[in-house]
């Protein structure tokens, strides 16, 4: 059995089921991120692991112990909340040691652990202050200190970075990752930010409407999305999802699209499996990441299947390190991510190169992958 085991877990409020048969096994030392739009059930799942919401069906076990009916304080978990939930009437030091005090750990032991954690998080000079006198980043550290000091089996993070400004968020993200690498703790982390999910996790569970849409490593999730929801939710700018038709092109399968003039464009696919062939002459959705569409020089040199595509540029957005170029394909805006100095100009034709190795195909009705 795995370290943290979520087995067939369901959550219902009355007759309304908000979380449907979730199965996730987390190994020791893993950094699992639950990601999804608001209302997808990710925070509910986290609260169920914490014991703050009861479990309607299925079991959750930590270290082979079923914790369904175990009080939050006895599950040996620690949680960092979105608002940090620091006790405003206590000093930083008291905040960090409150949990140990409640567990009747003697004072010398508490002081020793407090000093240890304060040193680790570099908040030694803040211990006598009240939370109201701290900046956002400092509060964040204290909240993590309060979790760390308890030496828990599992850390739970509930959108801990969403109250910070953009720069601080990136810094704290790195810091959380460092902490995980140094301490090797097991972490379950909830966020709606797909960048946080991709950068921090060892595994991601993408959730929507109470279902786990896909569970996998960041690379699996990014390169091989299981369905159109995962494809469009993960990645920024999101994957281009283009309505097209699966056709036979000189004996090989190709996706047929229309360019900005309405003329047909055929892009031969790298995947030629039998399951895909069943969709021949049917409508499919072609998914291509923006970075798979470049100019000829910027294309991935190791790619097997680079296809040229000449189309009119509608908008260019220079973003410093990259330039985002938008064109119209099959009536949809299609974004390409170019080198900063790519020579694309609005309202002019441009020679794109499409890396079809990275292309994925979806069924327009079921929205599921069909090329695997």
């Amino acid at each position, binding site marked *: 059995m795995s370290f943290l085991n979520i087995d067939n877990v369901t959550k219902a409020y009355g007759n309304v089921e908000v979380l449907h048969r979730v199965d996730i096994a987390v190994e020791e030392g893993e950094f699992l991120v639950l990601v999804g739009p608001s209302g997808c059930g990710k925070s509910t799942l986290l609260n169920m692991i914490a014991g703050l919401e009861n479990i309607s069906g299925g079991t959750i076990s930590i270290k082979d112990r079923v914790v369904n009916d175990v009080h939050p304080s006895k599950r040996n978990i620690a949680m960092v909340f979105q608002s940090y939930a620091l006790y405003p009437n206590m000093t930083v030091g008291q905040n960090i040691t*409150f949990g140990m005090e409640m567990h009747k750990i003697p004072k010398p032991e508490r002081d020793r652990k407090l000093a240890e954690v304060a040193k680790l998080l570099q908040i030694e000079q803040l211990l006598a202050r009240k939370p109201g006198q701290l900046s956002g980043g400092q509060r964040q550290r204290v909240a993590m200190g309060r979790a760390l000091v308890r030496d828990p089996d599992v850390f739970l993070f509930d959108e801990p970075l969403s109250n910070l400004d953009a720069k601080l968020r990136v810094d704290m993200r790195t810091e959380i990752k460092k902490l995980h690498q140094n301490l090797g703790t097991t972490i379950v982390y909830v966020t709606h930010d797909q960048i946080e999910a991709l950068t921090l996790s060892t595994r991601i569970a993408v959730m929507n409407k109470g279902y786990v849409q896909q569970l996998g490593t960041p690379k699996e999730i990014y390169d091989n999305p299981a369905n159109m929801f995962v494809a469009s939710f993960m990645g920024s700018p999101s994957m281009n999802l283009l309505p097209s038709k699966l056709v036979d092109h000189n004996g090989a399968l190709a996706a047929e699209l229309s360019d900005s003039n309405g003329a047909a464009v055929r892009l031969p696919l790298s995947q030629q499996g039998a399951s895909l062939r069943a969709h021949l002459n049917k409508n499919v959705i072609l998914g291509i990441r923006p970075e798979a569409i470049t100019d000829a020089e910027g294309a991935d040199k190791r790619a097997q299947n680079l296809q040229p595509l000449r189309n009119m540029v509608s908008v260019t957005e220079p973003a410093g390190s990259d330039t985002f170029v938008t064109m119209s394909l099959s009536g949809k805006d299609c974004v390409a991510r170019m080198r900063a100095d790519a020579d694309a100009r609005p309202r002019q034709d441009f020679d794109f190169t499409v890396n079809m190795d990275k292309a994925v195909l979806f069924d327009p009705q079921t929205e599921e992958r069909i090329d695997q």
Partner: protein
Amino acid sequence: MAVATQDTAVRTGRITRTFIYVVLIFFACFYLLPFFIMMVNSVKPLPEITGGNMMALPKEPTIAPWLSAWSTAQIGVEATGLKPYFLNSILMVVPAVAISTVLGALNGYILTKWRFRGDTILFGLMLFSCFIPFQIVLIPMARILGILGLASTIPGLILVHVVYGIGFATLYFRNYYAAVPTELVRSAQIDGAGFFQIFWRIMLPLSGPITIVCIIWQFTNIWNDFLFGASFAGSNPPMTVALNNLVQSSTGVKEYNVHFAGAILAALPTLLVYIVAGRYFVRGLMAGSVKG
């Protein structure tokens, strides 16, 4: 041009401000006038009042009326002054305020942080007690006090005031605690704190302003209550009832100076509470009402 415009602006401001202050001072005097009359007449000998002008300052100031009101004036059949009744009021008001405030805080804590099915309905029912007129409950209350064996006792009176006070106290604390993030409670739960530990260590230390509001409100209401005191206190009536007995006595000469002194004595504690904690009152009342 710009300078000229600003000049006019300043002048207009000054006129407006003067007008506002004049009006404010007028109204302040208007409201202070009754207190002035009470104060002035409570330190005059009786002939000066009956033979002269109510508004005039005392010619021979004396504190005898105050001493008389406090310790020797005829209240009902006994010449004890207001002193024992003042004590009755204190014995009634302190426990009643303390108990209703603590229960209100607990109710507010439960209704916001330990929610259960039907909690809003329960809260709505509790609010009824804020709006039910005292007269309606007199007879059922008398019956209940009789059953409990608390009729005509101070503990009985305390019970009545606690029951009536819980509604407002709960309203205050519920609205105040609604603004306290629930994550604090959840965090404390994970830290291993129990129901009362969270209340005692986390919620109560945050409740300063609203506690003061609640205390002022309950203290003023309970201290000033006449109806329950007159109905349920029996032989140990509170200050308000005694004051009425003093002022309404139909025998002998009407000692207006003593009456005035007694009335001020009866009003003094609430005045004191308000002066000491009044600024929190406005602040806390806003916090409770706006964020609810």
